[in-house]
């Protein structure tokens, strides 16, 4: 059946190569398993995840900054408009009221008209109680300031001389509250209320669930109010951030311009728009930084991120401090505004050239542009890729990198290269090389049948591969016991199956190479065809890996997956083995069949062909 002498000869001829290659692959395997198992592997996945998370948070911050900014500029503009209207209305209201008050003041009883002090006091009381009743808010404000003013009337007894007293009375009378002051104060108050309502309506328009009490509506309101800072309510917040407390929101200029009859023009003037933008940019960045670093918000964020393995420590390492967030936000806002200005100037130019049909189309173009810009500036890595954020993150987080490196990268690719080289060289040496050189003549001239020769050589090749895989199996089991890899599905039985799989691949490939070796008389041909096919399979597998399922979907090249259909190594289904499914079994059967066919056809051909010996 087999020729012992030939088997020995083949062992002697190929033994060295076998030994060196077996040692090399065992050594490589040990290195791969021990080094990648020593803890670095998990961190790779975490690193990828962190990058994505950080990018995502950055994008959120930028988005927030722009939306605060947009909301605030809009809010301030509304406020200006409200204020102007309120101020005018209040001035009118308070104007007629002040006339009543003036009349009332004029009707103050004089001491000289009464004979007795008692009469005078009585008249005075009556007069005081006849103070015109204030109805409107602005009237109340005016009445309050008038009464305060009246209480501060100088008393003769306080002054040493008549002149002094007269001077005091004069200055006192000059301090008489004007209607404008009252109107200004009340208009401010009313406008704040209106603005609050406006924001609530706006919030609900964005999303019906953003009701008055919702966090979203409160946040929107907050961002505007933070900028407006009515009655200095946010001074402490500004101080907390060690930022300068901004000057009170400027209504003075509105009043001044309004009195001059240019209120409308002023609030839409470039100067005023610039003022509002600066204020909004400043306050939005501060507000965002303040919010992002508030303990309760940080805790909320940590809660949300904890499912992706982000600990407080790690979050700290991302370094979202107040200064950083503030800087990031203000940079983004400046960039946004600058780009928007530029785009709008372009649109304006086009508008001037009559490119837009009407005002509406022009406004729409501006709105579209600003939306597009803000989307562009707030793009995150994940948002710009098609798959779902959480899905992708989850996938990366759950990736069993150790199994991928050992199974798909080592056993399916790197670890196959050297055995393939052995297979190509050995199968060529066993038949074609000996026919080509002529040394086969010595074997055949010793009454050894061709069938016996080919069987013996096939047996040698197969047994040498089995021995090789036996060595890698032992090595890999030892290595798996030496290293402890957390979060890996790899165990001894799966490892044995993977080794067995690599044996099946080698068997199939050796069958193909044995066939070409038997088929061709020239080792050149046998090697280039058999070896070429073999190397093609390996290269296709390498390329295919980048399109295979083991690569997370966000960095996978789906087109490269087609290479997997071109390689028989794909039938070595490491994923199925590691996942514990059964699909690998029929694939093994195909590999086995390919190998058997190769050996059978090769043997038949060798027995029948002419040998140039």
């Amino acid at each position, binding site marked *: 059946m087999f020729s012992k002498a*030939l088997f*020995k*000869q083949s062992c002697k*001829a190929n033994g060295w190569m076998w030994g060196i290659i077996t040692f090399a692959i065992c050594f490589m395997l040990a290195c791969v398993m021990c080094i990648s198992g020593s803890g670095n592997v998990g961190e790779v996945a975490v690193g990828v995840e962190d990058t994505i998370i950080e990018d995502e948070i950055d994008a959120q911050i930028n988005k927030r900054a722009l939306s605060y900014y947009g909301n605030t500029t809009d809010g301030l503009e509304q406020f200006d408009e409200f204020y102007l209207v309120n101020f005018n209305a209040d001035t009118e209201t308070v104007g007629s009221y002040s006339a009543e008050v003036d009349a009332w003041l004029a009707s103050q009883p004089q001491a000289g008209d009464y004979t007795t002090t008692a009469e005078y006091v009585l008249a005075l009381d009556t007069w005081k109680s006849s103070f015109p009743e204030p109805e409107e808010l602005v009237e109340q404000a005016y009445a309050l300031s008038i009464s305060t003013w009246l209480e501060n009337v100088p008393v003769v007894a306080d002054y040493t001389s008549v002149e002094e007293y007269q001077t005091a009375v004069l200055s006192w009378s000059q301090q008489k509250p004007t209607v404008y002051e009252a109107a200004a104060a009340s208009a401010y108050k009313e406008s704040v209320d209106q603005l609050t309502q406006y924001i609530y309506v706006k919030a609900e328009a964005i999303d019906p669930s953003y009701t008055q009490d919702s966090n979203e509506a409160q946040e929107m309101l907050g961002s505007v109010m933070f900028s407006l800072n009515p009655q200095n309510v946010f001074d402490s917040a500004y101080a907390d951030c060690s930022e300068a407390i901004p000057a009170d929101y400027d209504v003075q200029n509105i009043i001044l311009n309004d009195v001059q009859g240019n209120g409308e023009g002023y609030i839409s003037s470039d100067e005023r728009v610039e003022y509002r933008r600066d204020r909004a940019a400043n306050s939005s960045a501060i507000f965002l930084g303040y919010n992002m670093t508030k303990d309760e918000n940080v805790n909320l964020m940590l809660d949300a991120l904890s499912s992706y393995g982000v600990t407080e420590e790690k979050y700290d390492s991302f370094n979202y401090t107040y200064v950083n967030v503030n800087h990031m936000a203000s940079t983004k806002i400046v960039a946004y505004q600058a780009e928007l200005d530029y785009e709008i100037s372009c649109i304006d130019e086009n508008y001037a050239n009559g490119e837009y049909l009407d005002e509406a189309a022009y406004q729409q173009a501006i709105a579209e542009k600003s939306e597009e810009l803000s989307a562009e500036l707030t793009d995150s890595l994940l948002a710009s890729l098609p798959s779902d954020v959480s899905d992708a993150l989850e996938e990366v987080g759950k990736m069993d990198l150790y199994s991928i490196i050992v199974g798909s990268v080592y056993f399916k690719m790197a670890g196959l290269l050297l055995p393939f080289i052995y297979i190509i060289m050995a199968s060529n040496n066993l038949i074609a090389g*000996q026919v080509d050189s002529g040394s086969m003549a010595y074997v055949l001239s*010793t009454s*050894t*049948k061709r069938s016996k020769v080919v069987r013996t050589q096939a047996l040698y090749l197969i047994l040498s591969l089995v021995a090789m895989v036996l060595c890698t199996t032992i090595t890999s089991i030892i290595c798996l016991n030496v290293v402890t890899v957390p979060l890996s599905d790899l165990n001894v039985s799966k490892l044995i199956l993977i080794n067995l799989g690599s044996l099946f691949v080698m068997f199939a490939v050796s069958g193909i190479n044995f066939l070409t070796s038997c088929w061709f008389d020239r080792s050149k041909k046998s090697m280039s065809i058999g070896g070429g096919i073999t190397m093609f399979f390996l290269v296709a597998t390498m390329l295919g890996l980048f399109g295979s399922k083991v690569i997370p979907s966000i960095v996978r090249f789906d087109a490269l997956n087609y290479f997997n259909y071109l390689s028989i190594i794909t039938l070595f289904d490491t994923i199925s083995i590691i996942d514990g499914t059964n699909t690998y079994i029929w694939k093994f059967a195909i590999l086995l069949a390919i190998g058997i066919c190769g050996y059978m056809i090769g043997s038949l051909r060798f027995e029948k062909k*002419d*040998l140039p010996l």
Partner: protein
Amino acid sequence: MEIIKLDHLSKDYGNARGVFDENIEIKKGEMMGFVGTNGSGKTTTIRNLMGFICPTSGKCYVNGLETWKNASKISKMIGYVPGEIAFPDLKTGTDFLKGQAEFLKLKDMSYANELIERLQLDPSANLKRMSKGMKQKTALVAALMNDPEIIILDEPTTGLDPLMRVEFLSIIKEQHKKGKTILMSSHMFEEVEETCDRVAFISDGHIVDVVDIDEIKHRPSRDFKIEFVTKSDYQKFLGQGFNIIRKQEKYNQVTLNIPKLDIGKLFKVLKDYDVKYISEVKYTLEKHFKNAIQSKVK
């Protein structure tokens, strides 16, 4: 009885390459030479004999067995020295010879050792670094070690130095004396003329002629070339009635063919002539085959 027989053997490789309609019979104990130029088909014929290739038509037999179908059986009887010496991928000559012995299931190495000694071969040398001669010797030992009945040698002396060649041929002759049947191919006529009993001449895949060496060596007539000193002698000699085959008047030379028995008569005649020189023109195998090809062409 013939031990090797080629029966209308043809192996056509296309483009008029190969061997065509070969018929040779080699008797037991005979030493057959096989001569032809490079590429004339010697090796193809031998491959057929060894059963390495399947004939296109015709058959060849060794010991009555058809060689293609019984390659493994006939190879037991044949010691084969291939033309191109390429050894298996082994370290030393000893390794190789031991391996061959194992293939042949040969237990007793005494004969092999004897051969090694005769050939002054150092088999422990590295196979790859062996000189051509050493390789040839090693191959010969491998072929002879199981004392086969038939020995087939494909151009065994090519590339050997003259001394080594003599040594080599003497061993082959010795085997012949022991009663072995030998087929030796060569492209050198002298070599086969010296050693073989019979010689087949192959040209372009066709066997042109098969000659008994005895016929060449013991031809009934001889050729002589004679040069005379004077023109008158030359003229006179032409009239003596000998079988003149070539005349060269310019040099006063004649070449004549004369039966062995008449040589005495020639010398008697020449006694009266002033002969400048006389020499026998040897009839060689080469000449014979040249004539044979010429007559075939005609």
